[in-house]
């Protein structure tokens, strides 16, 4: 008689909610006649809302399941909530854009939902193979989203580059997992932690190779320099709302798994790899910020800026402390708000066929479209880290965490990079407010869904910036039980 093991499905309730919504979207898209965009976006919205409600009700429950392969601690749940927020905001960004570009198809919502399932698995993975599967479930829909505008060559090119780079990174990652498994005989994070006691990284060549390959694999996904070369091309070619999604959600998921991997499973090895992370952080910040200065296209500039922001979060990862993890979560929340806002304005000011993306084209915007210009200025101030915005609070806690963990130079280089970044963010504001109006037949309509996204993003940016206390409590709770 075979015992049927108890399966704790509670740990994947949010995933089930989103997966169900994604299947319903596909079926409705298949069988419904006529105008279906409203119905499909409502179903998607309900899926995200249900997942967010379930995740928030599991707060402090610490569910584990599937032989400890998945764990729904607060750390995983805060990321699940962040993915739901990113998904809903992307949805608001998308509706108007898809109609304007005449590329609406039902699969769009399915791809966003199924990618979110992968991110949620990645955030709660407590085992290397589960993490690998989560990464693939996340990435494969993203390749299709990049090539979603399939008649356009730019979108084709983005999909090609993203797919080849992503698949290459997965190959490297799984080879690293194989070596870690070979050396330690396990892939579970808790068992890895126990097996590592008394070992040194440089005494075990297989382990060194395995961990190195795993780090390279995840570095491709979170786009650390020198594994970032795909980012600008993919961000420019991808439809803009999907770019906003790319710059937030997969990046947050990559950081979630990196934190769990390095702070839990490989915690005994952390002192040995701090140096490597230090170098990666400095390279990522400098490359992102310095190349962003030279950009003329707003999407390309935001792509390099997203690389630089990954560098700031990498500072928090390097510190290896609870303060660092808290600061990183706060920064990711702030980054979600301000980046969705910035991309929202880019969509608002764009035109059919992805025209009007040059920064110079924004000159004199403040006179004809004062509201759009003011909102863009707010998001640019926040991205540059100027108080009293969310970006300032995020950077402040990251640098404070670095200083208190003894990484003085890392904090100094981070501040230097913030100053460099002020140059290219403020240039957008200067062009909008101080340059004479450009000859343009730009006509802006203010579609409701897009305005909702921008207003929510602006609210988040200001709220985190001025009243950070409730957010600090949230991130403090989210790492409880993690350390």
């Amino acid at each position, binding site marked *: 008689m075979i015992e049927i093991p108890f399966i704790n499905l509670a740990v994947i309730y949010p995933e089930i909610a989103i997966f169900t919504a994604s299947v319903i979207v596909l079926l409705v898209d298949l069988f419904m006649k006529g105008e279906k965009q409203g119905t499909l976006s409502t179903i998607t919205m309900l899926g995200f809302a249900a997942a967010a409600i379930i995740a928030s009700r599991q707060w402090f429950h610490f569910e584990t399941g599937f032989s400890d392969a998945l764990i729904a601690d607060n750390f995983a749940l805060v990321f699940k909530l962040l993915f739901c927020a990113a998904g809903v905001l992307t949805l608001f960004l998308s509706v108007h854009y898809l109609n304007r570009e005449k590329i609406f198809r039902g699969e769009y919502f399915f791809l966003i939902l199924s990618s979110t399932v992968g991110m949620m698995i990645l955030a709660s993975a407590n085992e290397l193979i589960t993490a690998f599967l989560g990464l693939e479930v996340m990435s494969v829909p993203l390749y299709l989203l990049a090539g979603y505008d399939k*008649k356009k060559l730019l979108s084709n090119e983005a999909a090609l580059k993203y797919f080849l780079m992503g*698949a290459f990174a997965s190959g490297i990652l799984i080879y690293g997992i*194989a070596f870690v498994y070979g050396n330690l005989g396990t892939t579970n994070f808790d068992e890895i932690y126990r097996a590592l006691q008394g070992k040194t990284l440089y005494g075990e060549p297989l382990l060194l190779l395995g961990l190195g390959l795993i780090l390279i694999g995840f570095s491709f996904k979170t786009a650390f320099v020198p594994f970032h070369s795909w980012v600008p091309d993919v961000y420019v070619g991808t439809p803009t709302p999907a770019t906003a999604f790319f710059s937030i959600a997969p990046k947050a998921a990559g950081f979630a798994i990196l934190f769990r991997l390095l702070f839990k499973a490989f915690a005994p090895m952390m002192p040995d790899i701090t140096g490597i992370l230090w170098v990666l952080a400095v390279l990522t910040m400098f490359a992102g910020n310095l190349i962003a200065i030279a950009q003329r296209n707003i999407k390309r500039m935001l792509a390099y800026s997203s690389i630089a922001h990954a560098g700031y979060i990498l500072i928090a990862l390097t510190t290896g402390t609870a303060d660092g993890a808290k600061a990183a979560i706060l920064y990711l929340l702030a980054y979600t708000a301000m980046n969705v806002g910035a991309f929202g304005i880019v969509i608002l000011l764009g035109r059919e066929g992805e025209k009007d993306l040059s920064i110079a084209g924004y000159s004199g915007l403040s006179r004809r479209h004062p509201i759009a210009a003011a909102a863009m200025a707010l998001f640019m101030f926040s991205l540059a880290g100027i108080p009293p915005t969310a970006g300032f609070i995020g950077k402040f806690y990251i640098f404070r965490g670095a200083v208190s963990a003894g990484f003085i130079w890392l904090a100094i280089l981070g501040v230097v990079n913030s100053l460099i970044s002020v140059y290219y963010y403020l240039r957008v504001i200067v062009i909008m407010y101080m340059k004479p109006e450009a000859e343009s037949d730009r006509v802006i309509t203010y579609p409701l869904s897009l305005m909702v996204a921008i207003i929510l993003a602006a609210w988040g940016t200001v709220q985190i910036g001025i009243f950070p206390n409730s957010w600090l409590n949230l991130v403090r709770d989210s790492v409880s039980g993690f350390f």
Partner: protein
Amino acid sequence: MSIGLEHFLLLSGVIFTIGVIGVIIRRNAIVILMCIELMLNASNLALIGFSVFSGNPDGQIMVFFVIAVAAAEAAVGLALFVVMSRNRKSVNVDDFNLMKW
């Protein structure tokens, strides 16, 4: 001569290296995809070798997941290549150069 773990690892290392070099030097997207499949299969070989020689069956289960992932990636990748070859009549990666930094 008996076949030991080192033979498994050597073969998997050779196949993985061929895959990586192929991704870097080949220009045809389909050949690059094939090289990525080689990398995944090299990992499978390493997983099986470790699993057999440590008596721990987990590694052989992981191989099934990797095979499933490889199939999903191939399906999506080939679909993307079909769209590209319709628009461009080519799947050569050098022809997709609209964007430069």
